């Protein structure tokens, strides 16, 4: 077990380093940070001096080595755009993105799993077909269109929910949370829904497919033959056994959710990491972009690790050694 975690951690470090390298190699091509940092009246000479000061004229390898070296020492550098410490900028934005991602994930699970079970148990019903078709249309509309539609429907026409931002937030030891105010929740609904639609459909279809497979397995047939009550049969026996593949995909997707929140955050002016990243691209804010990518990679490997541990928690075959 310890060895397993160690192995995963080693792999994670490798993945993060590789992402950092790739990310860094792209910066040279995104644009010229200096022309974004200076005003129109700044002389070419002053621009060149700034470029030299920032080390942008150094060879690529040297720049990368400096970036990684500083990173390993916990020095994340300063933003070109705002001159703020990058670590602080990212850290203050993490709660917003994580809360959005997790709520989107929870919506997708709490809606996706029951509907998945339902549609698996009644594969031919009218309701099932309606659900399947609706969600299919849902994932076929580009996220940004959905987001704007929701804003204008619920924000402007009906006036029920806020159109942008996080609403009221509460500081909890450095973690700015919108989960503890009504206002915060109201602000969270639309972006989380927008972000969760794809995830929801995926979860639902996955649960449905797995459930239909499991319902044909011998142990479900045996449990049926023993007269185990239906509710228990569906949830304790069948659903539990669908969880391992569902967790894998949901876990894998969660990394994608965090990354894809870029679009949602930009539409809802949601002050998370994705929005920061988009602004950083616009200003060629290399330090922020670099750290953002490493943080995203970190979340990705972290989620993967959690998924692996969840397997162990769910499946006794991985937890307890086979004696036979």
């Amino acid at each position, binding site marked *: 077990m310890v060895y397993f975690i160690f192995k995963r951690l080693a792999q994670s470090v490798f993945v993060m380093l590789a992402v950092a390298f790739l990310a860094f190699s792209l910066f040279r091509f995104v644009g*010229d940070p200096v022309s974004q940092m200076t005003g*129109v009246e700044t002389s070419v000479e002053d621009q060149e001096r700034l470029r030299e000061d920032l080390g942008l004229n150094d060879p690529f390898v040297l720049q990368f080595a400096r970036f990684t070296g500083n990173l390993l020492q916990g020095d994340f550098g*300063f933003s070109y755009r705002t001159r703020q410490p990058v670590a602080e900028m990212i850290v203050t934005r993490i709660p917003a993105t994580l809360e959005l991602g997790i709520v989107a994930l929870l919506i997708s699970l709490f809606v996706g799993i029951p509907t998945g079970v339902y549609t698996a148990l009644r594969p031919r019903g009218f309701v099932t077909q309606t659900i399947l078709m609706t969600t299919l249309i849902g994932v076929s509309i580009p996220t940004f269109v959905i987001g704007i539609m929701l804003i204008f429907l619920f924000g402007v026409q009906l006036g029920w929910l*806020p159109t942008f931002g996080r609403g009221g937030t509460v500081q909890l030891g450095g973690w700015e949370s919108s989960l503890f105010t009504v206002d915060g929740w109201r602000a969270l609904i639309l972006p989380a829904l927008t972000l969760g639609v794809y995830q929801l459909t995926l979860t639902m279809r996955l649960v449905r497919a797995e459930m239909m497979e499991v319902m044909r397995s011998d142990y479900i047939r045996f449990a049926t033959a023993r007269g185990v009550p239906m509710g228990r049969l569906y949830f304790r026996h069948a659903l539990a056994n669908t969880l391992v593949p569902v967790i894998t995909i949901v876990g894998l997707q969660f990394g994608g959710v965090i990354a894809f929140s870029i679009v949602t955050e930009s539409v809802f002016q949601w002050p998370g990491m994705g929005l920061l990243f988009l602004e950083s691209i*616009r200003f060629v804010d290399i330090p922020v972009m670099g750290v953002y990518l490493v943080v995203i990679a970190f979340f990705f490997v972290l989620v993967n690790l959690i998924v692996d541990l969840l397997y162990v928690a769910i499946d006794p075959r991985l937890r307890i050694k086979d004696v036979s």
Partner: protein
Amino acid sequence: MTCNTFRNSTLLASAAICLSVSASAETLRWASTTDPQTMDPHAVNSAPVLSFLNNIYEGLVRRGQDMSIEPSLAASWEPLEGEDGWRFNLRQGVKFQDGSDFTAEDVMFSYQRASNEAADVRSWFAPVADVRVVDDHTIDFVTKAPNPLFPDSIANFMILDKGWAEANDAALPARDAENYATMNVNGTGAFTLVSRDPGVKTVLAPHAGWWDEAGHNLTEAVFTPIGNSATGLAALLSGEIDFIQPIPLQDVAQVESRDGFKVLEGEETRVIMFGFGHEHEKLLYSSDVSDANPFADPRVRLAAAHAIDVASIDRVLFRGKIEPASQLVPADISGYSEANSSRPDYNPDRAKELLAEAGYPDGFSFGLKCPNDRYINDEAVCRAAASMFAAVGLKAELSTGPVRDYWPQLREDDFDMYLLGWSPGTFDMEHPIRFLMHSQDNDKKLGSWNFGGYSNARVDELLPMIQQEIDPAKRQMMIDEVVKTTQSEVAYIPLYTQPLIWAAKDNVDLTQRADNFFMLRWVTVN
């Protein structure tokens, strides 16, 4: 004030929004597309920063509602006697927001700070030879040559408190790491910073000890950047914000059609133009002309100018909200050449003739570069222009991209023709002559945005004379000559003046200044 006059919804939820919005009677919530990058007035020379900080900091002079220069921290100024330069008599009894007194030492300190290599605004002080503190409330700016426009050019030069900056280790603007002044302020202006969450929310409150009479009735002002224009509009229409700058012009009708909202329209000082690769030996992006640069021929440039139908661009893309431009500044800018106020008409036949005369009866293809996130409808204008060019045989290979790699491309001469917008920082014709028309000269720091390398000896000769001429009539004559010359040579094709479109709730009274600066001191919420 009433909760909302624009919507009579009975829904509880919407009522809740209104309550939260109008919790404090004189709170203004406003949004714009970009967050000011820093609170340091000398670190970055960009419009969002200068616009925002003009509410907090003040310069020696300031611009009024009509853009005219008026006294601010300097109560008066006059030319120095016996040498070139200006003397500023500072206002007495002005206090910084932390309560300390404003003196000439602060101006001196701010000058040193702003002209330091670490400051992005140092180009403003290129003409300055020396600065001398005469007494606590008098300071002299000695210039290298006569400079009648110097006071106008430093309207955005904002004064910091010396003691505060030094005590907080912010004696120089932050270049690569932040310092205290990045997130904190101590100005003399009408508003002071209450809290700042970069990229999310910035809260301002009136400065109680402001020297001038407050023309506003605000108790609080909350700024939120909203990058997505549709979201911004939604925020306004749902009542979550009171004012937004700018809104997309195609949405003007939508805002106007709703009760309780108004649209403020004006002309910005920014002129949009096409530039040419004058000095290029050959076209970079041509499939049929590889050994010559047709744009070196003024007839070809004029043909291009005649091909553009600004009226159609105005009608379809701008819904009648732009002013065609004849020169690189709009009409209300000082130095505008009334004598040369006509622009080449839309005349495709004439364009074809000119092309034939120049030896290109069938036209030719070339590369047209445009930004897609810099100016209003920049990409659409270029597409429309490319279509119009095509009609006379000029086949434009359009290439658009974000501004972050647009400037580098222009600097590397990677274009045949390009789109550029220019707003004169000094609100004087001299500004575009200096940056866009004078030959490129890195040593003298002239012509630094003259990417195409337009060069005319007479223009180069006239620029210093214009800069130094005190007599307005003589000066205007020289400017007229420059404009005439560049028009006849078609150095650029000025297209139109960019419109300025803001939207607000009906109950907000505010002033729209042509430089797109939003001044809280003129806002009243009824």
